[in-house]
């Protein structure tokens, strides 16, 4: 993955549940790279587990990686490759999602490197 060295902020617990299968991996795309999350992840959890900032602020270009996890702070809005916006902490991760963290001033996602 391009960009600064990653620092994953989220570590998933291994669930030990007798008789129930472990949650499966969920394939999605982040900045053009094929990556994986886990069944049950929100978009926020999946991106935090990869150690990548979700977005950069409009005014100062500062990286942000969510804050409140409960849909209050509005700091985790991300874009999909076709320009749709979603609030990462309240959006379940779906297989095949194509997400971008780098968005140009026109609001149109930059071509992934």
């Amino acid at each position, binding site marked *: 993955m391009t960009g*600064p*060295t*990653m*620092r994953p*902020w*989220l*570590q*998933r*617990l291994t*669930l030990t*549940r007798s008789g129930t299968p472990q*949650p*499966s991996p969920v394939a999605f795309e982040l900045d053009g790279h094929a990556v994986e999350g*886990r*069944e*049950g*992840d*929100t978009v926020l*959890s999946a991106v*935090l*587990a990869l*150690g990548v*900032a979700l977005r950069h*602020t409009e*005014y*100062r270009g*500062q*990286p*942000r*990686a*969510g*804050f*409140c*996890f*409960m*849909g*209050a*702070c*509005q*700091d985790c*809005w991300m874009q999909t490759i*076709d*320009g749709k*916006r*979603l*609030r990462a902490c*309240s*959006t*379940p991760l779906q297989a095949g999602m194509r997400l971008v963290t780098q968005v*140009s*001033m*026109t609001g*149109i*996602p*930059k*071509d992934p490197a």
Partner: protein
Amino acid sequence: MTPRVVIIGAGPAGIRAAERLVRAGLRPVVMDEASQCGGQIYRQPPEPLRRPAQALYGFEAARATSVHQTFGALRPHIDYRPLSSLWHVEGRTLHVLQTQEDGQALNESMTFDALILATGATERVLPCPGWTLPGVFTLGAAQISLKAQAALLGPRIVFAGTGPLLYLVAWQYAKQGARVMAVLDESPATTRWKILPAMMARPSVVLKAAWIVASLRLASVPVHQGVRLIRAEEDATTQSVQALTWQDGQGHTHTTACDALALGHGLRSESQAADLAGCAFEFHPVEQAWLPRTDALGRSSVAGVYLAGDGAQVRGADAAELAGALAACAALEDLSLDVATQEIASLQQALRAHDTFRVAMSQLSEPRQNWAQEAPDDLVVCRCEEVTAGALRQCAKDTGAVELNRLKAFTRIGMGRCQGRMCSPAAARLLAHAQQIPLNKVGRLRSQPPIKPVPLQALGAGRSGGSASVVPPGERDD
């Protein structure tokens, strides 16, 4: 004609309100933003991440289960609208954004005869420099990650701030084997002795608290009180938090390495819907916050609008259950339906202990007295609009503004997506300090619709053209 009662929020308060209304033969609408009931405290993980109630809710497992099961039994008797976000209240009309199965948002309006607002609370955060860095989260976030996502923030995590949640979440993490580097309480050590008499209104909670603190010490987690947070330090390579610099009660400076920082100073009520509904607010010295005015049963100043749970006043989940039932009783009375005086009296009696306890929790959650004074000019106070403490102070000086909405108009503080949820406690304190006036004299941010961001397309703006297509790469100019 059956009156339409709408309940906003399917947490403990909303669920008990619904239960009481159903018992009276009504069919309330219950709206909630999440896909499952429980609010935040009894938030349920998605199906693939289910765990036993004991693992999820610890001491509160029985209460959580009761609330969830009650809701399950209510389902056939209510009009349940999950994934529905109330974004405006206009008189008797509610504007709601509902997320469909395909992810599309649908805007809908409905009128109410009675409205019970059980909107809960968020973290109250007094910022420290570096709080916007990736890796810094709220205490609530750390708890939600564990509960709803079966995941720990970290790996090395520092918990800091004030209030009971600080210790509770740190302990929950330590129990899971997380690397809890420190628990840093900005409240002076003397506070817990000061509040002990009020805390004795709920002795079982005192025991739980003592157990939690003892467990942390047994696990060799460093716990400090009377702390002052100085700065979350940035790792330039990863542009994320790498340490927290802080001062202990004796004035010595420390730097604790970490990968994540969980920060919070108690809770703040979500009162935007009450504001838009026209409810009168008053300043509460204990909470140091403006809250909607209610009578003893939860009636607001607006006929037909009721308030219950942490969204009205932070008293915790158990109080929320009682307040929800009580607000429903008030609504029923006002709809000329019979409610036994004894029932109302018992609920009020049960709430008394929680009211006393609330005072203790508020004191424990108080931010540092000198927070405003100590905040450096380059501290980013408004996360959304990136407004610094220095900019606020300069504006106060240049314009003589003594009221929060005026400060907002000049600096954009509170104008961003979060509409002041994260910054207004800080902004209010900075303005009060800058103008040397009491906190209750700077006013409060007026709520504006939408309560949360709403896509214009859902409001019909894009209807004629359909969704805009992305500009093809060859035609872009960026």
